[in-house]
Structures are given as C-alpha cells and as structure tokens.
C-alpha cells in the first residue's frame, strides 16, 4: 500500500481505581472518546483488535457500541497485549484490506499482586505451590544482577520513581499524582529488595482506544498526520531471563525480546535511537525503565547512572522518558498499558501535553512494552 498507517483518534479512561465501572465500560468510554477525537462514528470502524487480561473478552464491547457486525479479535499477550493489538491493527491496514480500524485495551485487576497460575505458563504445579509465581521476584532478581554488573545505585532507582510521580502531576489520566521525594522513596518499606514500595507499579484499572487509518483516509479526515512508522512485537530469544524462569542459561540474562523488537522497529522506521525525541518505556518497576533504556538502544549498560544524575530523561532533558509518569504513576491495567504509552506519545506529538509537554515540537516518539512470559512490543511514531 502507499503511505503510512496513521493514528487519527485517541481516547483514554483515567487509570487507577474507578469503583462501580467495569473494565469493559472503561474501554467503551475510551472508544467513544477516540471516535469523537477522530470525528468518526462507530459504524465507520471496519475492524478492531482488543486486549484485556482479566476484565472479560473485548469483543463483547459491541453490545455497548453497536451490533455493526464488525470484525473484532481478542488479544491476550501478557503486559504486551495492548502493543500486540496495535501491531495487529496496523497490519490489517498495511495489507490494504481495511482503511479504518481500532486498537483498544482495558483492564480491571483485584488489589494486590497479580496471581498468575503455573498452568497458564507451561510450568509445573510445584512452582506455584512453593511461592515462585510472583512477578516481583523476577524483576527484583533481574535488577539486582544488573546493578551488580553495571554499577547502578539504589539512588538511581529512586530517581526514576521520583520523576514518574513528578511527571504525573500534569497528566489527567494518571493515578498517583503526588510528588514523592527521593529520600521518602528510599526509606519506604522494601517489597522485594532492592525495590521499595514506591519503586513498583500496582495492578490497576483503565482503558485506551486508538483509531487507525490509512494515510489517504487520515488526509480526508483532516487530522494532523501522526504516522506509525513501525510497530513490532517479538518473543524471547535463547539465553534471555524472563518472568517465571525456573532456570537461566549460563551466560544468559542479556538477550531479550526487547532488544530484537527494538532493533526491528528502528530498521523498519529507518531511524536510530539518537533520532527519538520522546520515549515511553515499560517501567513496571523503577529498574525496568533503567534496563529498558539500554535494551532499546538509547544508552549503553551502566550509562544510566550518569543519565539519571544529569536529568537527561526529564521532560526538559535530551530524551524525556515516561512523560505521563509511566506505569509507576499510572498503575498497570494489563490490557491497556501498552496503548496508554502510544496515547501519551500522540498527545506529545500533537503538542497537547500541557504541563508535561516536551518542549521543541517533538517529531518522533517511541514506545516499548514488555510482558510475561517474555514478549515485547515497540512502536515508533513520527509527525
């Protein structure tokens, strides 16, 4: 096909806790906002991909939105569900089959940690019986090793969390919008060493919808052209260290789904990390943002210590990262999280960020989402 796939409408239901509103209805709310933003009606949408992990089947949205007979595919891909939905949606337009479609994600999780079951991850029952089916154990082990190898301090972890809450003050859709100082973050109770409670995000609720169109349709709609230059989704390579791993290969832990998804995304977009103006990187915990800075190619392993001390990832820094507070401040509704990142990037590229707007009219924006049991999705947008 000629031209790029463009994002012509965005909608979000605030993240956090919304008692009395189902996850599905938060998604429906986001869809209606996105349609209004695009100047379209539901019957204009030719197809949809929807992600939800624990709030029901996304295709049941048609009961609220209208029984138009639309083709609607449910996506379940761990924390990368939203990114995977978007990847699939853009392929449907790229193929030339459709001109207008939707990627939507929503979720609503019970309070407390995610309670995954071994049978869902090809693991033996004893692994869960003994208390290993816990994502926080993996993330803490991964950062402990990384800090040891590359000289990252716990203060750097606190700087990431501190930045998230400061950025979120200006994001209407964020959950935790109170600044927390670095010392408070460091002195808070440990959840899984070296992470204190402020360094982990929490399972949450929320919904996001994106309307995609062919470039031709986008021009007809008269919207600013936000081009989806690439959207990639990859699974884990050999030697990677992933959530719920009972063992790792010797010498492993460095390869990752993120590295290959990122490399693919840059190759398809024809630009490099140095060309990116703003990035949303998966930060389910503070160390994830640090490690993902390197895994996505923005710096080398260990450089993050200086990057954070010098404020290079601040909104006014060289590479603003997680401008809406990321998962740390927004919480994580699994199905919606990856699409929130893209939503935020569209806001930034349109210049609508208000108090969190990246200065200098950013032209390129990057998202990365990572999920169990070792999947990553990346997008690159260009204005």
């Amino acid at each position, binding site marked *: 096909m000629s031209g790029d796939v463009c994002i012509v409408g965005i909608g979000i239901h605030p993240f956090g806790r919304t008692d009395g509103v189902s996850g599905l209805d938060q998604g429906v709310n986001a869809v209606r906002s996105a349609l209004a933003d695009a100047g379209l009606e539901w019957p204009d949408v030719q197809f949809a991909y929807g992600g939800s992990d624990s709030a029901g089947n996304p295709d049941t949205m048609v009961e609220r939105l209208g029984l138009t007979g639309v083709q609607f595919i449910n996506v379940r891909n761990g924390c990368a569900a939203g990114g995977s939905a978007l990847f699939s949606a853009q392929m449907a337009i790229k193929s030339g089959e459709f001109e207008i479609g939707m990627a939507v994600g929503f979720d609503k999780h019970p309070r407390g940690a995610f309670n995954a079951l071994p049978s869902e991850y090809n693991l033996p029952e004893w692994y869960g019986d*003994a208390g290993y089916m816990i994502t*926080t154990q993996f993330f803490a082990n991964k950062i402990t090793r990384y800090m040891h190898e590359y000289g990252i301090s716990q203060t750097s972890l606190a700087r990431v969390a501190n930045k998230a809450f400061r950025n979120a003050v200006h994001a209407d859709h964020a959950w935790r919008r109170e600044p927390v100082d670095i010392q408070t973050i460091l002195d808070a109770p440990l959840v899984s060493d070296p992470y204190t409670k402020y360094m982990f995000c929490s399972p949450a609720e929320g919904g996001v919808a994106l309307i995609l169109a062919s470039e031709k349709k986008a021009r007809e709609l008269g919207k600013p052209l936000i081009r989806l230059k690439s959207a990639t989704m990859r699974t884990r390579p050999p030697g990677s260290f992933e959530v719920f791993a009972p063992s790792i290969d010797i010498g492993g832990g460095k390869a990752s789904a993120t590295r290959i998804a990122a490399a693919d995304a840059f190759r398809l977009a024809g630009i490099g990390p140095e060309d990116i103006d703003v990035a949303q990187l998966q930060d389910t915990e503070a160390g994830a943002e640090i490690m993902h800075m390197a895994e996505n190619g923005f710096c080398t392993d260990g450089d993050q210590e200086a990057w954070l001390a010098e404020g290079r990832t601040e909104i006014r820094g060289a590479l603003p990262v997680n401008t809406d507070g990321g998962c740390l401040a927004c919480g994580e509704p699994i199905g919606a999280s990856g699409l929130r990142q893209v939503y935020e990037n569209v806001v930034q590229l349109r210049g609508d960020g208000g108090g969190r707007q990246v200065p200098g009219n950013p032209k390129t924006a990057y998202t990365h989402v990572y999920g169990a049991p070792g999947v990553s999705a990346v997008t690159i947008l260009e204005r």
Partner: protein
Amino acid sequence: MQVTRHAIADGLFTDEAQPRLIGGQDRDSGRIVFPCPPGDRFAPVPLSRTGTLWSWTIQRYRPKSPPYTGPEAFRPWPVAYVELPGEVIVEARLTNVEFDAITIGMPLELTLIPLDPDAAEPVLIHAFQPAGTEA
C-alpha cells in the same frame, strides 16, 4: 527414603543422602534446563550440589493462594538464582543465611527445607545455603 517421601514433586531432586536437583539436558543441543521438562527431548541429569549466587531478592509479602500452598504465617525468605558451573542457573530459595550477609558470588550448596516448618509432615522444597553450613 524419608527425604523424598515428602518431596513437593516427583523428579525434582534425587533420592540420595546428599540429594541433587534433576535438570533436563536437551538431547540435541546439550543445553541444560531446570526442572526436567516432560517428554523425550530432554534427558534427566543430576546437577551439581554446589554453585555460586548469581542474583537474589527477598520475598517480603505472603504470595497469594492459589497457587501458593505454604503456611498462613509469613516470614520473609530470600529467592535467588544460583549458578551451577558449566550447567545452568537455577532459581531457589536461600536458607541458613542472614539477609545482610547475602552477596553475589558467594559459594552455596543444595539442601532441602520444609515448605511449612511447623507442619507435622511438611513437604520439602529445594534451597541453597552457604557452603559448609553445619546441618
């Protein structure tokens, strides 16, 4: 033998006075994983009883049940990855060690511990302790 009668699962460690974890070796590539997956592709192999600490954290809240089947009473425990030289890095609890004495690279040896220390006939899970710890 008394030890294996209460193992949390069959095929996880050997029935020896000094038990060893049982890994699985890919018959084609030689790659070793833990635990040994079902099927013909992996051959069961006993793993080294000793290794070094690769990484660690402390589990500081009680995991949700299901799937966790440990005691209601909760005491924090270390979860580590232990490198068995030339074989594989395995996830395991640490035991018989003060939290502030845990360091990457420390020599460790395998032991079996009860999932619920207060149970009359507790199931046993694998753990590593500092090498040379008195039984």
